[in-house]
């Protein structure tokens, strides 16, 4: 082993340019792998984040017209029995119309408990004008209403819920969710305001929640766990929905991306393997004279083949090390220099040490695999051929 290793090192050193070229080749392959992998998982993460980051990921709802009056009890029960959920927040929604003079606009009036709801929606950050509601009948509107109702801060409006009645509300702020559908439809207020407008007691119609960071793709399983809690309590099962079932298109998009990312990586690796294999095959040819001499001196066939396995291993390791460094450097400069106007990176990257370790391990394995053929050749090489063809 030691002998084969030191011969391998000497062979690699004696052809420095050739050696560095192969290492460079492997390094480029690995760096593309690392960069594309980080880029695609970064894209996916930001896409998922944008889509579901500020919304309920598992939602418990009762059929329309029904309410939950023991919601605090349910939440505390779920908190102690279901793992993987970061926060629950109760909410109640009233659909109706907002009236300002002659202008009218349909509205979804959403009552929240801000303490917990903020952890999901980050309302504070989305307020562009005014403040959050803090007492009954204060509402915050999407900025879309400014135009449709032609209103300003502190305007008094009438909120009309069909068949129930009207409530006077005051606009204490505007929010911008960067989503047109929400900006033109939602009004945000306290639980109390909606409960009063609907003429019901301290009840809610749904409980929203957000899953712990690393577990968002386990939403289906967690939702199922939540569902079992209701069966156990004999509560007359509310419906439990999760973001995955509600976002099939997004998910199939993500899956497509993952597959194409894997394909790119597979092809990069194949080309790296082919490159190493062919260069090593040439090296065996170049070194056949030396192998012949070593065999005449009595080197074992196993050691003769180990020389080339070690060459593959050394090339793979160095290539992987330089490749990871290059890939990280590339990723780093991408996030540092390619910036949007607001200073955030154009493409967010997600650097996953596990994935990088995997890429490096694949490169080393590939280099080892590629050296199998030359190693076999070296083992089979006949001394007499070499001696005779001087």
């Amino acid at each position, binding site marked *: 082993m030691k002998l084969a290793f030191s011969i391998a090192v000497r062979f690699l050193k004696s052809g420095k340019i050739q050696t560095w070229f192969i290492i460079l080749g492997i390094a480029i392959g690995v760096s593309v792998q690392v960069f594309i992998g980080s880029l695609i998982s970064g894209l996916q993460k930001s896409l998922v984040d944008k889509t579901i980051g500020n919304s309920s990921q598992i939602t418990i709802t009762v059929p329309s017209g029904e309410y939950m009056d023991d919601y605090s009890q349910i939440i505390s029960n779920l908190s102690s029995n279901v793992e993987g959920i970061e926060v629950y927040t109760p909410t109640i929604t009233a659909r109706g119309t907002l009236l300002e003079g002659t202008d009218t606009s349909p509205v979804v009036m959403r009552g929240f408990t801000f303490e917990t709801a903020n952890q999901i929606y980050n309302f504070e950050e989305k307020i562009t004008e005014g403040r959050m509601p803090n007492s009954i009948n204060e509402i915050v509107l999407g900025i879309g209403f400014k135009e449709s109702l032609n209103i300003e801060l502190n305007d008094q409006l009438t909120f009309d819920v069909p068949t129930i009645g009207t409530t006077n509300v005051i606009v204490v702020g505007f929010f911008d969710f960067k989503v047109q559908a929400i900006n033109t439809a939602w009004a945000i207020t306290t639980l109390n305001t909606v409960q009063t407008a609907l003429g019901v007691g301290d009840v809610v119609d749904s409980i929203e929640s957000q899953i712990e960071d690393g577990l968002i793709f386990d939403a289906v399983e967690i939702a199922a766990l939540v569902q079992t809690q209701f069966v156990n309590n004999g509560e007359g099962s509310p419906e439990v929905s999760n973001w995955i079932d509600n976002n099939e298109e997004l998910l199939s998009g993500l899956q497509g991306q993952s597959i194409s990312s894997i394909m790119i990586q597979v092809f990069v690796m194949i080309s790296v393997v082919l490159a190493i294999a062919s260069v090593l095959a040439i090296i065996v040819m170049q070194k056949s004279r030396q192998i012949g001499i070593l065999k005449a001196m*009595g080197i074992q066939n196993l050691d003769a083949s180990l020389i080339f396995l070690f060459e593959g291993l050394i090339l793979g390791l160095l290539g992987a090390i330089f490749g990871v460094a290059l890939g990280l450097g590339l990723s780093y400069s991408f996030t540092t220099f390619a910036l949007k106007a607001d200073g955030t990176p154009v493409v967010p990257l997600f650097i996953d040490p596990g994935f990088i370790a995997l890429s490096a391990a694949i490169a080393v394995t590939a280099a080892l695999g590629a050296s199998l053929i030359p190693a076999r050749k070296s083992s089979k090489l006949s001394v007499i051929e070499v001696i005779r063809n*001087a």
Partner: protein
Amino acid sequence: MPNVMELKEITKIYGTKIQTQVLFGINLAFEEGSFNSIIGQSGSGKSTLLNILGSLDRPTAGDIIINGKNTKSLSSKELSDLRNESIGFIFQFHYLLPEFTALENVLMPYRISKKPITKEVLDYANELLDIVGLTKVKNNLAINMSGGQQQRVAIARSLMNNPKIILADEPTGNLDSDSTEQVYELLRKINHQFGTTFIIITHDRHIAEKADRIVEIKDGRINLDITKANA
């Protein structure tokens, strides 16, 4: 003296479609500590014979007995070990490892045996380089040495594992006559000092005549086999 090497009815046929028979039933035995030369015309089969003797090539038929062991019964691993321990080769075209220094080349047979390199071993390698007069250039890469120097490194290397037998194929083939003379003096000295058996192919009749025994090969057969009376 007992025989260190014996050939029994060795034939060699090259090729499968077009067959060329090169050796025709050769019977030869070499005594321990003897200094033998093999002569013969170009193409007569000398190198073929030597390569078979050294187990680098297999005969078409016949037996080779080295150190009392028939090589037919040995695995390729055992053959490698036998070559490593018992046989030193000196080829016509030096065949050093160009990536290694003179000293490293000399040490290589020992490293192949996988025994640890002790100070004694290193001293011995240096001594061999001293014997062949290369102490000054021992740390030069083989590729940077002259032909004669390379040949002398190859001689030192062939002695490294104290082999019983040294096989040499025209070891002075491309040296000038002074260097040739020096190399033979050296081989003779080693023969006397260590009792090593030498089998040397040469074109040089003058050199051949200095050997204890001359074997002449002609068209794949032994034409002449003279042993000097005083040997």
